[in-house]
């Protein structure tokens, strides 16, 4: 195979990151942000988002596509965070307690999602996407009607003025920055490199999850999940319980998504109670795809690169648009536009690449015949017996 062809294949395989890298490069000068500001933002957001995006890896490995149902875990954590805030448990213990409370709720949600997706084999992505919206309804019933009426909420400040139901937005002052600035508080000064603040503990937590994911892939269960992801039929024929394996992947993903959302929230510290969960899921999916993941393959370096690139684009584009069009409201519009266009484009290109791949595989056999056809053309006598 020639070098040129290799380069072309490589380019086509990474077309999504390449397109968005180009877009960012064009937008960057227009935004007028300083390099330092951008680096600080990226570092913060790497800490904030990477955990959530990593939660997408295992269902992807299991061949269930991108888990748009990530919001289910986020919902579990929102419930947990409401309680933690209500009970005024603060700092690291608040974060850990929130994680503890979210776990059983995530497990129930994940189990439900897993069963549902097992009945929608081959259509996981759209099913999980709709599942996110559907579960949002169930979640809202709990939070909007249950909390403060059936489920006791002590802090009146969390409730709507009618006496029950949680406010649209709640401030998570108790847990804000628990991981991000833990070392800063312990040491009594801001941990920074060249004026850029580093959320050390958050990054350590993310690193730990990366390590765990890496280790998990090398276990027996990890191998089974990979096998199921590639071919359910062959795996079943080898005695692997396909449905169970897929449910386990979904459980792991949902629980991790719950933890990821708590890590996310301790950084953001303002929780949109009714809209947060699915937005976060959409952004995570977009970040994963922009990092060059396909609907069937992704790696840890891709996740980190994807989060960085997605957020760079996220910061730069609205400001650039604002400067060019001179209207502040354009910014928010651009954010949504970017994330959905990334998802749409990435999925289309993935599908297209997958088809190419399949054709190549089928035609591997063909090449021999193709050569022969050329030589046959040279000699006019057909081989048909007369």
């Amino acid at each position, binding site marked *: 195979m020639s070098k040129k062809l290799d380069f072309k294949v490589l380019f086509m395989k990474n077309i999504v990151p390449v397109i968005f890298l180009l877009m960012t490069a064009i937008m960057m000068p227009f935004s007028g942000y300083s390099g330092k500001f951008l680096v600080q933002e990226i570092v913060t957001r790497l800490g904030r988002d990477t955990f959530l995006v990593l939660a997408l890896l295992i269902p992807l490995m299991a061949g269930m596509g991108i888990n748009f149902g990530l919001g289910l875990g986020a919902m579990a954590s929102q419930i947990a965070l409401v309680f933690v805030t209500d009970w005024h448990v603060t700092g690291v213990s608040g974060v850990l307690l929130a994680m503890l409370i979210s776990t059983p709720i995530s497990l129930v949600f994940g189990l439900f999602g897993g069963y549902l997706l097992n009945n929608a084999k081959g259509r996981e992505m759209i099913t999980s996407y709709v599942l996110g919206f559907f579960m949002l309804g169930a979640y809202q019933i709990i939070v909007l009607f249950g909390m403060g009426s059936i489920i006791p909420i002590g802090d009146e400040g969390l409730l709507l003025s009618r006496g029950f139901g949680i406010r649209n937005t709640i401030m998570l002052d108790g847990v804000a920055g628990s991981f991000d600035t833990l070392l800063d508080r312990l040491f009594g000064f801001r941990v920074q490199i060249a004026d850029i603040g580093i959320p050390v503990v958050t990054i350590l937590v993310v690193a730990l999850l990366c390590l765990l994911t890496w*280790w998990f892939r090398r276990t027996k269960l990890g191998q089974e999940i990979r096998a199921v992801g*590639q*071919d359910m039929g*062959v795996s079943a*024929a080898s005695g*692997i319980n396909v449905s169970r394996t897929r449910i386990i992947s979904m459980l792991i993903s949902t629980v991790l998504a719950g933890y990821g959302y708590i890590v996310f929230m301790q950084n953001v510290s303002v929780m949109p109670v009714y809209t947060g969960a699915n937005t976060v899921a959409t952004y995570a999916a977009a970040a994963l795809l922009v990092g060059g993941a396909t609907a069937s393959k992704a790696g840890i370096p891709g996740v980190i690169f994807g989060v960085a690139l997605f957020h760079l684009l996220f910061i730069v584009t609205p400001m650039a648009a604002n400067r060019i069009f001179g209207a502040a409201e354009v910014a928010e519009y651009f954010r949504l536009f970017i994330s959905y266009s990334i998802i749409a484009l990435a999925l289309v290109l993935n599908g297209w690449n997958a088809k190419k791949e399949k054709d190549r595989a089928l035609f591997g*056999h063909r090449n021999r015949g193709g050569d*022969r056809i050329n030589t046959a053309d040279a000699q006019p006598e057909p081989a048909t017996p007369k």
Partner: protein
Amino acid sequence: MHTDNQEVLRFENVGKSFFGNQVLKDISFSLEKGKILGLVGENGAGKSTMMKILFSMDDIRETGGYEGAIYLDGVRLDFNNPMDAINAGVGMVHQEFSLIPGFTATENILLNREFTKRSVISKAFRGKLDTLDRRRMHLSAQEVIELLGVNLDPDMFVSNMPVGHKQFVEISREVNRENVKVLIFDEPTAVLTESEAQVLLHALRTLADRGVAIIFISHRLQEIIDVCDSVIVLRDGELVKDVRKEEGYSVVQLAKWMVGRDVESKSARREKGLDNADDIVMDIRNLWVNMAGELVDDVNLSIRRGEFLGVGGLAGQGKLGIPNGIMGLAEAGGTVLYDGKPFALNSPKAALDLKLAFVSEDRRGFGLLLDEPVYWNVTFSSMQVLNKYLKRYLGVRLRDDKEMRETTREYINSLEIRCVSEKQKVRELSGGNQQKVCLARAFDLEPELLFVSEPTRGIDIGAKSLVLQALKSYNEDKGVTIVMVSSELEELRSICDRIAIICDGKVAGILSADEDSEKFGLLMSGLRSDKESA
């Protein structure tokens, strides 16, 4: 080896019927340790049903099990699912690969039997969280591969392997099981080159010498003769021959047993041959078709005007790819001349415009609009292609339902389509009658060249002869050239003028319908006898 004649597997009067249709009758044979048994028969002779019974596949159990008994090591089999069979030591190397493409050879060979390293936390998870011991896995895979005597990199991804290597990975996986007693090889050499096939045959012998009993299914009869200790021949669900190597048999004999003595078929063929050898309606040269499971590699075929040409061969050899490729339903390439003019491939519209028609083997997929009435199905294509049944009212073209129904009633009478009326939905008709609707639709296109693919598949004998009769009279009375693709050789021989046998994506030979059965058998087995011509 002669002293070692322990019986491993025994079939006793095994039979099977699907919904009253007996597909396997009274099969008895036994297989000893370290022996290789050849199993030959045409498609549909019952080979795969036999293997399905042995593996206790779902479709056997769900249709009421089987008659007779099978003994493994003297114990009567009572498997509930294929996993039981595998655990009991019965392995099978499939014709289609069941490998995971993104895994290495090692990972595939040891799939779900991986070596692991114990760790403290994993105990709580029943070993699921043990890490894989890649080094031991590699060694184990290496060992089997060496045993088979092939040159294969255990760390190569299966997706990057040539077909032959994939086959060996598949075999390695079965051999790697510790307790394997009986191994079944279902057409393992079909995808191999000659030298690869030689390595495989050698590996079979090695395995047998290590005490594994082997059932070897192949249509390459020379291989059967080379490697097997005994052979059983199945025909129409019956065991017609059980011979040992010592008794001696030749390829020609095997072929004859397989196809059966010339059946006294009431020949439907025209009495006097056609004098049309030079009048070529379609000239196909170097045709390749990319159709899953039916790859056509390099077909050269000249279709004579007015003839009834049969296309036969075993399943998966490419015979179905030919009409699908020409009619633009599967990606194709090569040169096709129609009436001496170049013919555009990959365009169903172009084919239809040139008055070609096709009755697909996939009735439900391509042939019918199941939830529409019969008259719609019959007239739909000709309305699209020929603008039939359209009337102009005030400059707008509307369809003429009355004429559509009248035409359909004529077809219902002439083809004896059994339906309540022309308004009945096609879904409610039986398979044979659905097939007749497909034919009526093709006839209504007034084709000059008609491709018919597996017209009698899945329909009962009565409907079969009606369908064949209809095709024959259409060919004779209207002079329409018909190319019929069928897996049933006898059916082709009863109706066609010439029969082309496809093997390995190429035309193995073209025979006149009244040649000896064994000549057909040889061609189907990929053995080129001295080149025949019609």
